[in-house]
């Protein structure tokens, strides 16, 4: 864990195998999350609105269920973003590109967490939730892919850039 905040060359070299394994599991988790959403109708605006608002007024999802979704999602996204954000500076990616990718992943994750509240507040806008369902995992997967390219068989990570 310490190499995340002080990524010296030795620490990064020793961390390559566990980081690769972690990233593989992170990618699988994000994909499984996306698949779970998709199988529940999360890729259709009408299905999303039916899920949150119900078929008739007053049949919508209770407020506690929305907060439960936010609670679980904030932990999942928060932890993944922290790990990915700490590893991105060690990548061969340009610094600005890495920062933009991280910012996009953070914004998409926050939008995904807030989208259910938007749908219930507006009584519609299911398309927003569909968009965030796709954007948040895609941004995270792009970041994971960029890190995997470095921590995989390619060139070694760059500790001097991680230190800023």
């Amino acid at each position, binding site marked *: 864990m*310490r190499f*995340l*905040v002080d990524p010296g060359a030795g620490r990064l070299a020793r961390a390559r195998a566990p980081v690769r394994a972690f990233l593989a599991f992170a990618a699988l988790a994000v994909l499984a999350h996306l698949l779970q959403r998709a199988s529940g109708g999360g890729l259709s605006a009408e299905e999303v609105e039916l899920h949150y608002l119900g078929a008739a007024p007053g049949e919508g999802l209770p407020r*506690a269920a929305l*907060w439960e979704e936010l609670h679980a999602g904030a*932990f999942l996204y*928060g932890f993944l973003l*922290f790990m990915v954000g700490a590893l991105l500076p060690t990548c061969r990616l340009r610094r600005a590109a890495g920062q933009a990718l991280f910012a996009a992943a953070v914004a998409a994750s926050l939008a995904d967490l807030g989208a259910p509240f938007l749908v219930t507040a507006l009584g519609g806008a299911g398309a927003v939730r569909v968009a965030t369902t796709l954007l948040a995992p895609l941004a995270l997967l792009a970041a994971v892919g960029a890190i995997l390219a470095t921590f995989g068989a390619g060139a070694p990570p760059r500790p001097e*850039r*991680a230190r800023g």
Partner: protein
Amino acid sequence: MAEPGLPPAQRAPALVFAGFLLLVASSAAVLFSEKLGTGPAAVRDFYLGSEARFTGPRSLAGLLETAVPHLLAIPLAIFAVSHVVAAAGVLGAARLRWLTRLSFALALLGVAAGFGIRWLAPWLAWAKVAAFLGLEALLLAWSALLAAAAWPPPRPASAGRAGRQEPRRQRRRRLHAPLGVDEQRLGPGGGGEREPGRAPLDHHGLR
């Protein structure tokens, strides 16, 4: 000794992590008040059932459904945040150890108290409420420490030549020394102290 704080490239992830920890803590507070209630009596009713609320006692499966993810997620979050705060050096070792132990203890108490209320003693509802409030406060503290690690305080004007922050005790001793003699510059016997058989040092550190 290095200055406290994270390397510049690692500051944004730490800040984002702090922000998401706050989201977790705030959503936990809403869920606690919505589902369990706002006091020990309501918490006791949640676990033991209440005729007034038309609810039955919680089942083992229902309690485990909440306990299992929390037994993984809370320690993992504390483990990660305590490591980052420790590596950043924004908190002394003793305080860090104390804060980490208290966080783990409250997390365990919070999870165990639910089972205790249901099968051991209803008064453990007080422990459940106390553990929850304590853990919420500690999550806020951890978030603040992460933010402090990401935003190190500006270097004071009295910092040493090598850019090191002057220890508080050393600064106090220097300020209270006769004529403001800098003990660090004078070395042993400075600051008006007399060595046996030798004249005292003046404020230039000379005899």
